[in-house]
Structure formats: structure tokens, C-alpha cells
């Protein structure tokens, strides 16, 4: 970790595209990881639009490719990251936690959200903009 001379910046990161199709999620991951390595703070990572698709636990990428969801989940675990999936965007695209799966009658075991992600409202994005020193958007 670098010596920041006390200059710790509080970042918020927004991810607007899903895994694999666009590089946005990969770049956001590398940025977030680097910021943490440098001793900065990540207030929140917010997943919006197709970005919610990063949160599915059902991906099975080829052995020789990176696992985008796992990258995020492991980073969250290591650094206690707050990773929020927008509920409205998630409903349009089929990302559900256990509560949502039950509420919409999708059947036992249907919840497909991966570890480290939580579903919440768009207010969490605005709050991130208010609380963080810098908000950085990655998308298409």
C-alpha cells in the first residue's frame, strides 16, 4: 500500500454494463482494486442498467477465462465492499434475492444473486454521489 500522506479519497463506483459483453465491469473492477491497494476508500459500488447482471451466481465461464462475478464477490469479501444492485434494473433483467424471488412467486431456489451483492433502491446511488468525494461511472 502506498503512503498517501493522509490523502485518502472516498470513491463511489458505478457499473452500467453486464459481464463479458462490455469491458466496463472489468475496468471498474481494476479501478476499484487499485484504489483500495492505494489505501483509498470505496464508499459503494453501485450496479445499474445491465450492470445488475454482474451479480448473478449462475455464470459458468470457460476455465481459461476470468470469472467477473467471482472477482467482484472476492474483492467485496476481502475489503468489506458495499455492492448494491438497483432493484428496478434488477427486476427488468431477472436478478433476484431470496425475498424478491418469494415475493414474485418464482419458486424455491430461484434466487440468483451472488455473495457480496445486495439489492436496494436508486436512492443508494444518489447517496453515494452525496457521500463520496468522487463518483466514477463505467459503462457503454
Amino acid at each position: 500500500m502506498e503512503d498517501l500522506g493522509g490523502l485518502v479519497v472516498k470513491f463511489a463506483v458505478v457499473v452500467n454494463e453486464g459481464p463479458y459483453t462490455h469491458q466496463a465491469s472489468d475496468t471498474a473492477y481494476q479501478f476499484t482494486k487499485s484504489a483500495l491497494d492505494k489505501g483509498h476508500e470505496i464508499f459503494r459500488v453501485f450496479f445499474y442498467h445491465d450492470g445488475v447482471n454482474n451479480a448473478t451466481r449462475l455464470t459458468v465461464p470457460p476455465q481459461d477465462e476470468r470469472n467477473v462475478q467471482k472477482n467482484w464477490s472476492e474483492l467485496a469479501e476481502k475489503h468489506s465492499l458495499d455492492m448494491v444492485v438497483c432493484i428496478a434494473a434488477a427486476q427488468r433483467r431477472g436478478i433476484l434475492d431470496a425475498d424478491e424471488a418469494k415475493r414474485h412467486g418464482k419458486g424455491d431456489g430461484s434466487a440468483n444473486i451472488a455473495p457480496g451483492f445486495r439489492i436496494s433502491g436508486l436512492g443508494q446511488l444518489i447517496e453515494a454521489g452525496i457521500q463520496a468525494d468522487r463518483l466514477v461511472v463505467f459503462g457503454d
Partner: protein
Amino acid sequence: MSTLHTVNKSPFERGSLASALAHALPGDAVLLIEDAVVGVRAGETAAAQALKAAMPGCAIHVLGPDLAARGIAADGVVDGVTIVDYGGFVDLAAAHDKVQAWL
């Protein structure tokens, strides 16, 4: 108040680099990432000319890992463009008052 503008699309196919350059103010910086890096290859291209025209007032940076992925050598970029890694991206974001993405 200075801004870091990020651009992630090829300037040969999209208008986002041109639009970012047209709205950057003196003291701002522009960082090319992802597919946008194809625009910094040295040569007589429209993209290279646009970058050269912008540079007196605006610092132009490019993400090195994205350059390498597109087969562009470090010594093959437009004169004056600075190559940074992900840590350098973070430093740029910290050094400016805000970051504006041109998606």
C-alpha cells in the same frame, strides 16, 4: 474546479472523444480507456490530429493495459500523450475535482 474526462469508445466509430474534447476546459484532463485507446496511435489520422489540437489546453492520458491489449506499443502513441496504469487512473481521479464519463 478541474475535471477528469474519461472516454471509452473508438473515435473512428463514435463521437464521444470529439464531444469530450469540445467540452473540456483548460486545466482539465482526458483519459482514454478501453476501445478509445485506438485513437492515440501516432499517424496522420483524424483522431491523432484532434488530440494534438486539444493538447495545449488539456492533458491527454491513455490507459497502458488497454493499449497493450490492442497491440499499440508505448513508443507508438501521439507525442505528448501520457501512459498510465490503473493506479495512475486512480491518481488522476483523485487529483481532479470530479470525473465525467463520456459514454
